[in-house]
C-alpha cells in the first residue's frame, strides 16, 4: 500500500515497558487501532490504547492517520440515480457520435425497461428480495394468481426472456429443465422447481446479463442499416402461439414493466410508466393481438359468435370497435371484431371504448378486471364486453 510499510514489531516490546503500567502487549494494542479509531472497542481497551499512544510514536502516528480516515467514511452517494438520465445521456452521446451498430428502434423499449428495473433492484435492500409478490393474470373469465417473491419474479422474467434467447441461438437459462415446457408458465415453474433453494438476489446478475445479451445480439443481427425494414428471420414460439422477434421483444419490455410495478409495490417504491413512445408501442402490440385472441375466445365459447351478415374475407373491412387510448402514448385503433384477418374500418364502427393508456395496459396485464376498467363506452355492449375480456386474456403468468 503506497510504500508505507509498518515498522516490524520490536521483539518483546510490551505496552508496560512503554507506558509504565501493566497492560496488553504492544502488538495487541496496535491491532486495536482500527477498532479504536472507529470507537468500536470496549472502554477499557480504549483507555489502554490511549495510554499507549502517549509513549509509542509509531502507534500515535498511525492512530492519527486512522482517525482522519474515519472522517472520510460517508454513506454512499446518490443511490437513486434518476432513471431518465440513462436515456438522455445515451441519446446525447449518440448525437455526438452516431452508432455504427445501433440498437434497433424496436428493441429500445426492452433496453429501457430492463435498465429501469435494474435500477430499482440496485436500490432495494437484501431483505426486500424475499418480499412476497403475487403474480396476477386473467384466465378465461376470472382472475388467477400465483405467489412468489421479488427474486422469484426476476427468475420468472429470466425464464421467459429465455424464449427469445433460444430463438436467437443464445443459451437457455433453463438448460435441460426446459425440455417439453414451451410456455412461459411451464418454464417458470420448471425454473423455480429446478433451483435447489428459493431464488435470492443472486438471480439479478444472470437475468441482467441475459437482457444485455439479447440487446447486443439483436443489434448485431437486426439493427444494421436498412435491416429495420427487412423481415425478421426469427419468430419466437411461446408454446401455442408465436410472435415475430420485434413483437416478442416489445412483449418482453411490457412484461418487464408490469413486473417491475409488482416489485415496486411489494417494496413500497414509486415506479413510473414507460416513456410515451414506448408505451405507445406496447399498446399497439396489444391492439394488434386483440382480433386473434377474440377469435380464440369465440372458438372456446367465451365470446359471442361473429355476427357478420356476410363472410368477412381476409383483408376486407369488417365490423369494428374503436379503441381510443387517452394520455401520453395513446392513440386510436380500429379493432376488427368478426375475423382476425379483417381490416378495422371506420365505416363499420359499431362501438367506441375510451380508456387511459396505463389503465389499458393494466387490463392487458391482468392486473385490472374488465369490470374494474373504467372505460367510457358507446355502442354495441356485447362487442365492448368481448373486447375488454379479450384484452384481459392477453395476460398470462
Amino acid at each position, binding site marked *: 500500500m503506497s510504500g508505507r510499510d509498518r515498522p516490524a514489531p520490536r521483539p518483546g516490546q510490551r505496552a508496560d515497558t512503554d507506558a509504565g503500567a501493566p497492560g496488553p502487549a504492544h502488538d495487541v494494542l496496535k491491532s486495536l487501532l482500527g477498532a479504536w479509531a472507529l470507537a468500536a472497542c470496549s472502554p477499557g481497551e480504549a483507555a489502554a490504547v490511549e495510554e499507549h499512544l502517549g509513549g509509542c510514536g509509531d502507534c500515535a502516528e498511525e492512530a492519527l492517520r486512522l482517525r482522519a480516515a474515519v472522517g472520510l*467514511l460517508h454513506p454512499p452517494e446518490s443511490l437513486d440515480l434518476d432513471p431518465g438520465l440513462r436515456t438522455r445521456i445515451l441519446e446525447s452521446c449518440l448525437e455526438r*457520435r452516431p452508432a455504427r451498430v445501433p440498437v434497433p428502434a424496436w428493441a429500445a423499449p426492452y433496453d429501457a425497461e430492463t435498465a429501469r428495473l435494474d435500477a430499482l433492484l440496485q436500490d432495494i435492500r437484501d431483505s426486500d428480495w424475499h418480499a412476497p409478490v403475487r403474480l396476477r393474470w386473467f384466465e378465461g373469465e376470472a382472475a388467477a394468481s400465483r405467489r412468489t417473491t421479488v427474486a422469484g419474479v426476476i427468475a420468472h422474467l429470466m425464464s421467459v426472456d429465455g424464449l427469445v434467447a433460444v430463438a436467437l441461438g443464445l443459451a437457455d437459462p433453463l438448460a435441460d429443465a426446459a425440455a417439453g415446457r414451451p410456455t412461459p408458465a411451464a418454464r417458470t415453474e420448471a425454473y423455480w422447481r429446478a433451483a435447489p433453494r428459493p431464488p435470492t438476489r443472486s438471480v439479478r446478475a444472470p437475468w441482467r446479463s441475459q437482457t444485455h445479451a439479447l440487446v447486443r445480439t439483436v443489434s448485431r443481427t437486426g439493427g444494421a442499416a436498412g435491416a429495420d425494414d427487412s423481415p425478421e428471420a426469427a419468430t419466437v414460439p411461446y408454446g401455442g402461439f408465436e410472435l415475430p422477434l420485434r413483437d416478442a421483444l416489445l412483449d418482453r419490455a411490457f412484461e418487464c414493466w408490469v413486473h417491475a410495478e409488482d416489485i415496486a409495490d411489494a417494496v413500497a417504491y414509486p415506479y413510473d410508466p414507460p416513456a410515451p413512445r414506448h408505451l405507445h408501442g406496447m399498446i399497439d402490440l396489444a391492439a394488434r393481438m386483440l382480433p386473434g385472441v377474440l377469435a380464440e375466445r369465440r372458438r372456446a365459447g367465451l365470446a359471442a359468435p361473429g355476427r357478420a351478415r356476410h363472410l368477412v374475407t381476409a383483408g376486407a373491412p369488417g365490423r369494428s370497435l374503436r379503441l381510443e387510448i387517452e394520455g401520453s402514448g395513446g392513440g386510436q385503433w380500429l379493432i376488427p371484431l368478426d375475423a382476425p384477418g379483417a381490416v378495422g374500418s371506420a365505416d363499420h364502427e359499431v362501438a367506441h371504448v375510451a380508456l387511459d393508456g396505463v389503465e389499458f395496459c393494466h387490463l392487458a396485464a391482468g392486473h385490472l378486471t374488465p369490470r374494474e376498467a373504467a372505460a367510457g363506452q358507446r355502442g354495441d355492449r356485447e362487442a365492448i364486453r368481448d373486447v375488454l375480456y379479450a384484452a384481459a386474456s392477453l395476460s398470462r403468468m
Partner: protein
Amino acid sequence: MAKKDAPPRWDSGMQQRLARGEAAALGELYDRFASLVHGLAHRVLGDEPAADALTREVFAHVWQHPDAYDPRQGPLRTWVATLTHRLAVRRLRATEAAALTDGGAGSPEELERKVRRASVAARADFIVHSLPAPLRAALELAYFQRRDYRQTAADLGVTEEEARRRLRLGLQLLATAHDPAGPGAPPPGHKGAA
C-alpha cells in the same frame, strides 16, 4: 461486488465494441459505471444537476474517444473513475474561480482548499467502493451500524482478532486518500499492509 472482479477480458471486449461504434456497448458501459461516475461527481461537486451534467460529459468522452483507454494500463473501472475525478475537479475549480471573479466571497487559497477537500473525499469514496468485500463489510458494521469489533466479528463469523485486523487494514487503505498522489490515483493494492 462481483462486478469489480470481472475479468479484464470484459474490459478489452468493451473497449473494442465501443471503438466499433456499438450502441449496445455504450448502454452496458453506462449500466456498469453510471452509479460510480455519478457518485464521484456528486461527491466533488455537491450538487445533483452538476453531477448529472458531469456524468453526461464522462460518458460522452468515453464514447467519443474509445481509444483513449488502453486495457493494458489497468482496469476500465479505475480509468473511468480517474477520468471522472479529473473532469469533476476541473469543473469545480472552474465554477469556483468564476464565482470568485464575479466578486464572490473567499480567496484563491480557500478555493484550493475546497478543491483539495473534495478531491480527497472522492478518492476516499472510490477506495471504499473498491475495498475487498470482507473489509468493506467490517467497516460498514463498525461505522454505519455502530457495532463494536466483537459484535462485528460475531456478525461476520470471524475471530475477534480477524475483525480487528479488517478494521485496521480497511482504515489504512482509506487513509491513502490523503496521500499526495495525483488526482484519481488508482486505488492502492490490497496486499502488503499490516
